[in-house]
């Protein structure tokens, strides 16, 4: 049962490696964005010791990790919407696996492969040049790894909901751009959430977005410690359950549309 999905995950690792041009361009773009943000923050600090409780070194660590993590909390919405648009979906539904799990397995496979080849070298390079910090405690380090995994699953689930929208939308581009902007801003990848004005922080708390990036990286950099750390982990898991239920509900409504209109 699980083996089936593992094989799918492995196959997408091969696929990921098959496009060297995209790999290099992704590496270059990610790297230049990191340099841009680090330069920006360095200029903002410009001799200051603390801004809003952050020192430059931990803010740079935060920025590097959160921007990289933001690259990986995506999913297979592209593939799902293509399946829907081309009508291939009706064939997929006859196959002996759960389509959502299949897409997720493949995407997680690609994510892991890409992380090894992009994020890890970049982190090492940035650590060497900008002296990134270590996790504040061993526990924080372990919880960071755990919450990153949960965040990737959560990001995948949200992305599948977006992909399902292809049943109603002809052109998915706008929605995908919108989602990317929403993620970048509200998950804390652009700026730590605790720099937001209070009302906005409060608003974010009611969305799943902070669970994607701010929770893991906040734990790593010691912004979330003690009891709130455990609560954040719990909330993250809660969102996985909630989003999963929403995905299945949306999916069911969408499929009813297929059977009524014949795709």
């Amino acid at each position, binding site marked *: 049962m699980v083996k089936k999905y593992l094989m799918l995950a492995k196959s997408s690792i091969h696929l990921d490696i098959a496009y060297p041009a995209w790999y290099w361009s992704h590496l270059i773009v990610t790297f230049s964005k990191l340099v841009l943000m680090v330069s920006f923050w360095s200029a903002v600090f410009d001799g200051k010791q603390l801004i809003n409780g952050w020192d430059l070194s931990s803010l740079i660590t935060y920025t590097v990790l959160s921007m990289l993590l933001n690259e990986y909390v995506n999913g297979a919405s592209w593939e799902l919407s293509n399946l829907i648009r081309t009508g291939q979906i009706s064939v997929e539904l006859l196959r002996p696996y759960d389509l959502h799990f299949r897409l997720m397995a493949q995407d997680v496979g690609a994510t892991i492969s890409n992380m090894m080849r992009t994020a890890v070298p970049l982190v090492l390079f940035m650590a060497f040049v900008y002296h990134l910090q270590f996790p504040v405690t061993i526990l924080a380090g372990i919880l960071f790894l755990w919450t990153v995994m949960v965040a990737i699953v959560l990001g995948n689930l949200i992305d599948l909901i977006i992909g399902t929208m292809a049943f*109603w939308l002809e052109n998915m581009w706008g929605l995908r751009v919108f989602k990317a902007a929403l993620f970048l801003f509200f998950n804390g990848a652009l700026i730590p959430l605790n720099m937001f004005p209070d009302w906005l922080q409060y608003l974010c708390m009611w969305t799943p977005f902070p669970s994607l990036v701010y929770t893991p990286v906040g734990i790593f950099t010691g912004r979330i410690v003690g009891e709130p750390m455990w609560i954040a982990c719990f909330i993250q898991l809660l969102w996985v359950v909630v989003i999963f239920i929403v995905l299945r509900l949306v999916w069911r409504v969408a499929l009813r549309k297929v059977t009524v209109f014949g795709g």
Partner: protein
Amino acid sequence: MLRYIKLYWHFFKLRVQIMMEYRLDFIIGILSVLFIQGAGLFFVNIVFKQIQTIRGWSFDEVVFIYAVACCGRAIHHIFFDSLWVFGRDYIRNGGFDRMLVRPAPAFFQLIAERVQQDGVGQLLIGIWLLSYAAPTIGVEWTFVSMTVLIILILSSSMVFIGIHVFTCSLSFWMTDSMPVQWSVHEMSDFARYPLVIYNRVIQSLMTWIIPYGFTAFYPAAYFLRPETYLKMGWITPIIGFGCCLIGAYVWRKGVRNFTGTGS
């Protein structure tokens, strides 16, 4: 010339008709761009809550730079969007052959086939930001200075267009140059902030190698710090023309390579 303006108008009318076919997509597209630009500004705003200036540049000045960038890239975004998919949709599956058997320059047909409505949102934001920032930066807005501003914004889009035509034309040799287009285009984000916040290498890269500096920072700095950047302002139109010339040259070379002329 008049013929092509008329012909463009016919293409344009059809594009609007198609947009109206997908009204929901149209609205989502506009909204998503509004949101992205808004988020970027909000980010700058939050940062400037903590500090007065960044390397001596105030919030209003940064907004002014941002506004010039917005307008310049909006024009490119609205009218030159098909460059992105040139490799995938025209070279790979032979769509370019079809253009070559029609009695109009292939480049004109390529450009005329798409209008990207999302860019309209960007242009509106740009104009709105200009009208916010322009009165605050201590420039006297006469007819002459307004004209100069418009010329510099047009030059800014020419830089965008020229560079993009260059990277797009690489598709003639590598089938789909989208990864290259993307990684080069993303570099333009550097130009949204005062270039002085970056180290020397990035500054000269953005000025002389991939001259995105001329899409926002130099034209804006011409108004903000004329004592230092007067010359850079003046050469902006020259750089814009230069980029377009180089782009056109590479495009022509690509077409010749495609049709097997010369070489």
